[in-house]
């Protein structure tokens, strides 16, 4: 259906209104009171404000319904009046236009709380809240729905789903505005391209931004939006950045300062211009004057299929980089992975997501299909968790429609859904979900059987595409899986797959994909087989593949094939990659030059292992030393101890740092564990002293203290580790029992550090023979002095020198 407003936008710039709140405050609206309630309580004031804007030139006015939804009205105990408030608002705005031509937008603001998975409000509840208000607005006769000031894409998605549902009551245009901060991103980190990708996925008619910043910060955002879409653009800046003056928030930009920006916005591509916070009819009057003779810029939508996460957009199609969809989040044939999913654990899913991201995947396929698992719930969980650790777009992969739906529901981006095929039942189940959630879909060119010929596969593709387009899904949102068959089973099948790629490009102009590893199934040296096929497929026009991004051969094939298929403009990506690789190689070589001489004897190797922290082989090396006839005492005293001492010197000289000390301490500990039985059997190493170590009462931090214990033991001290949250009495009792020389206390909290004083006071009061050293994040030298500690160590690197120094002083007395 053609809408007049959209027809006009092809050749005209339309003007929105400005702020409602500021004008109502001027008419006595109390600070913090809901303006929406005035639709019923002070209708004349609302009418008057609309009239002022219409006189100033507004073609579209926003009905006074920004907060007229469930949660927000509830705050004023006015939810029961929702319908009346929304009806009155539309009525007043219509009345304000009188005989003058104009449009009333039903104004929809954020629902009043954050939406899952980012917040606590369930996504479907958010849809219901928006739908309830939009239904009232549509029934009241609004000419369009304007969704405004959204800072989270997920909440916007809920609003858009509701908007598309009310379109079934009466078809009307949808305008959707996000709010961007000064850094050009939304509060939840979405960039303009991803916002556009999501909004276009829902077929909004006008998209843009409002509020939060002044016009100067909106300019670069509008530029990015205009480059990313052919959809009409609207913009409502604030009158500059707000400042607080005499207890009132004011917006400092004058109408004269704002108006020139309106002209700039139109030159960039805006079709609708208005104002947000701080703007008044005078701003709109000047903007109207500037824009009334301007014509909209003709823009086109970039080619290809777009998918995105909350903050990252990927294009599939001709001229765009080849898309590597990581295949590894899939339990098929992987026992541990399946077990983790069965237990509801996401750690292995997240580990695979990170590995593929780091290897260069451009999107991730997510399949959590394990028998007897609640796959929809698990898909929802995986989709939410993965988004926290990588920003790649997701491909939601399941044979269960419900799992696909819950995946899309929890995904605050535009997902690619894997998959639909040409079966009527599947088309009827999956495509409406794609439409509802504004997603893109992978369409398998098969029905129940995979057709042998490319021509037959094309027919299936045509069937699916027609069904999609009949539902209003644009062809850009359909990506065809041409089906790569196993070459060892069906040698001619592969050439048919390549022909299918070409045919789909030629006849339908859609993007293509395939599951790569199928091709080589059953053959040796599989990598070479499927990567050879991949090169041919890319040459035939393939846009993406579900594949293993950790395969370096594949990465090279993709980089190389891009050069010949128009996917790497001026070979820049290829050259940059090779240059970086060469630079890394040279850096590594130069590092090698400075490396020390290679350890040759077992003693040298043990020394090196302790010094460098090679903990993985220290046990074997130590055993090797013993087998060669070295005495356990020699290994400990003549090899390991000098090594750890050298490390201490390097630490003191700031050539090595705490992580090295930690690694080496742990390494030596593992070596000493091999020696320990032998040392003890021979009477043990002479102890340098006995130390009681504890984290004080009330404190549960002990990781640093544990490292200190290891270090002291490595240096020959006898250490009794009492653990954490240890009362002073227990510490003193242990010191007495073990005839200790020293007590080491750790605390990480200001509330617990005073427990150190309790111990020291007791030692001093009873003249007990223990030295007390303290350490931990919150402690300082000054505090140590104040409580009369004998020694203070700032961090784990200081524990040995401090204890040695304290013990030395004690023995010299």
């Amino acid at each position: 259906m053609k809408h007049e407003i959209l027809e006009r936008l092809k050749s005209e710039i339309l003007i929105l209104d400005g702020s409602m709140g500021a004008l109502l405050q001027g008419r006595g609206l109390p600070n913090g009171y809901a303006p929406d309630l005035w639709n019923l309580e002070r209708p004349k004031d609302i009418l008057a404000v609309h009239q002022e804007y219409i006189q100033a030139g507004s073609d579209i006015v926003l009905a006074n319904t920004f907060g007229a939804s469930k949660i927000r009205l509830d705050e004023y105990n006015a939810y029961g009046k929702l319908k009346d408030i929304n009806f009155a608002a539309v009525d007043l705005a219509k009345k304000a236009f009188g005989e003058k031509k104009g449009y009333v937008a039903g104004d929809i603001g954020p629902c009043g709380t954050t939406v899952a998975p980012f917040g606590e409000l369930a996504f479907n509840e958010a849809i219901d809240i928006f739908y309830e208000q939009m239904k009232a607005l549509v029934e009241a006769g609004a000419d369009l729905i304007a969704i405004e000031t959204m800072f989270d894409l997920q909440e916007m998605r809920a609003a858009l789903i509701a908007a598309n549902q009310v379109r079934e009551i009466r078809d009307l245009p949808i305008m959707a505005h996000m709010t961007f901060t000064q850094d050009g991103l939304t509060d939840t980190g979405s960039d303009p391209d991803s916002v556009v990708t999501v909004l276009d996925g829902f077929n909004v008619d006008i998209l843009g931004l409002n509020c939060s910043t002044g016009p100067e910060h909106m300019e670069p955002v509008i530029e990015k939006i205009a480059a990313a879409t052919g959809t009409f653009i609207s913009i409502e800046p604030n009158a500059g950045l707000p400042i607080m003056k005499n207890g009132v928030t004011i917006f400092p930009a004058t109408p004269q300062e704002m108006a020139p920006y309106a002209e700039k916005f139109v030159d960039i591509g805006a079709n609708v211009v208005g104002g947000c916070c701080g703007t008044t009819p005078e701003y709109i009057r000047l903007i109207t004057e500037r824009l009334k003779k301007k014509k909209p810029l003709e823009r086109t939508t970039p080619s290809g299929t777009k998918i995105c996460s909350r903050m990252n957009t990927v294009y599939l199609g001709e001229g765009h980089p080849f898309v590597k969809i990581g295949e590894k989040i899939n339990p098929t044939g992987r026992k541990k992975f399946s077990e983790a999913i069965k237990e509801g654990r996401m750690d292995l899913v997240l580990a695979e997501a990170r590995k593929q991201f780091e290897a260069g995947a451009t999107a991730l396929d997510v399949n959590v299909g394990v028998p007897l698992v609640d796959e929809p719930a698990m898909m929802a969980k995986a989709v939410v968790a993965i988004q926290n650790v990588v920003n790649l777009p997701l491909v939601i992969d399941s044979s269960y429609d419900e799992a696909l739906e819950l995946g899309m529901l929890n995904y605050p981006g535009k997902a690619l859904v894997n998959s639909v095929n040409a079966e009527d039942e599947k088309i009827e189940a999956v495509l409406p979900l794609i439409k509802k959630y504004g997603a893109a879909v992978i369409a398998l060119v098969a029905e129940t059987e995979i057709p042998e010929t490319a021509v037959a596969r094309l027919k299936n593709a045509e069937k699916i595409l027609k069904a999609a387009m009949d539902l209003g899904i644009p062809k850009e949102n359909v990506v065809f899986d041409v089906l790569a068959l196993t070459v060892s089973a069906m040698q001619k099948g592969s050439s048919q797959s390549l022909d299918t790629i070409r045919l789909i490009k030629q006849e339908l102009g859609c993007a293509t994909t395939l599951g790569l590893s199928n091709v080589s199934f059953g053959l040796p040296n599989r990598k070479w087989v499927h990567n050879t096929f991949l090169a041919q497929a890319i040459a035939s026009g393939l846009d993406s593949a579900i594949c293993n991004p950790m395969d370096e051969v594949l990465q090279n094939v993709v980089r190389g094939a891009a050069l010949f298929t128009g996917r790497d403009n001026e070979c820049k990506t290829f050259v940059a990659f090779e240059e970086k690789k060469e630079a890394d190689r040279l850096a590594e070589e130069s590092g090698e030059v400075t490396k020390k001489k290679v350890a040759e004897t077992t003693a040298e190797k043990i020394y090196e292992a302790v010094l460098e922290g090679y903990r993985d082989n220290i046990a074997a090396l130590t055993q090797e030393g013993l087998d060669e006839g070295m005495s356990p005492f020699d290994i400990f005293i003549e090899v390991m101890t000098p090594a750890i001492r050298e490390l201490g010197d390097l630490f003191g000289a700031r050539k090595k740092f705490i992580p090295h000390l930690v690694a080496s301490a742990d390494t030596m500990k593992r070596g000493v564990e091999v020696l320990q039985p032998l040392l003890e059997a021979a009477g043990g190493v002479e102890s340098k002293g006995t130390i009681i170590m504890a984290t004080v009462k009330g404190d549960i931090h002990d990781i640093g203290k544990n490292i200190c214990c290891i270090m002291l033991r490595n240096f020959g001290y006898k250490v009794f580790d009492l653990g954490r949250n240890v009362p002073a009495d227990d510490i003193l009792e242990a010191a007495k029992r073990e005839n200790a020389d020293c007590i080491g206390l750790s605390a990480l909290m200001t509330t617990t550090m005073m427990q150190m004083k309790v111990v020291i006071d007791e030692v001093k009061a009873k003249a007990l023979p223990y030295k007390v050293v303290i350490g931990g994040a919150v402690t300082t030298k000054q505090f140590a002095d104040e409580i009369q500690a004998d020694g203070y160590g700032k961090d784990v690197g200081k524990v040995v020198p401090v204890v040695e120094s304290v013990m030395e002083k004690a023995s010299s007395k």
Partner: protein
Amino acid sequence: MRIKSLNNIITIKNIPFEIVEERVLRELRIPRIKTLKEMEEQNVAKFIKWAIDTAYTFIDGNGSYITLPLIHDEEKGVYIKEAPTIFEAPSIQKLLKECDYATLLLATIGPNLEDKVDSIKTDDASGAYYLETVGGWMADYITDKVDAFVEAEILKWGYGRTMRYSPGYGDWQLEVQQEILPLLKAERLGITLSDSCIMNPRKSVSAVVGWQKKG
């Protein structure tokens, strides 16, 4: 229009995060270099990388905040009616002196990372140390993310902001958390307080940010 978080707890769940190698290196007190690849001791770099990869699978960033009007009284100083004594410390009085509102916030990385640390600390002390360090920084990182929402709201209303100040800083005692946590319904984030006022999960942060009049 009203301040969204005014007397209203805003909860933010599933906070996306990135563990930046350079920040982890700084937390581990390794100066100058920005990436693990630059480390001369690649075996140590491998352990730190393990800690980062592991942290990615165990962090669950959540937070919440609430904004409350400040009452200025010549005798009592600055306070909120919901918990009149929590801002009694001189340092916090000074911080909030020029403010109209105070936002209390909470952030946590959840219990999973520290459970992992506790489970490995006996057999893999160095691994536990690296993971604990990454977790410590990530608690700050998630707090920064929650703080960014608070700041956006403050700026939107034309205010400036104070620094973020946490119980345990200076003379502001940890005990105030006994009143701060209920105001934020901390149990909804799974945060509880021990008798010694330590939050559980340990990798959690509570703080206040003041809404400062500009100029």
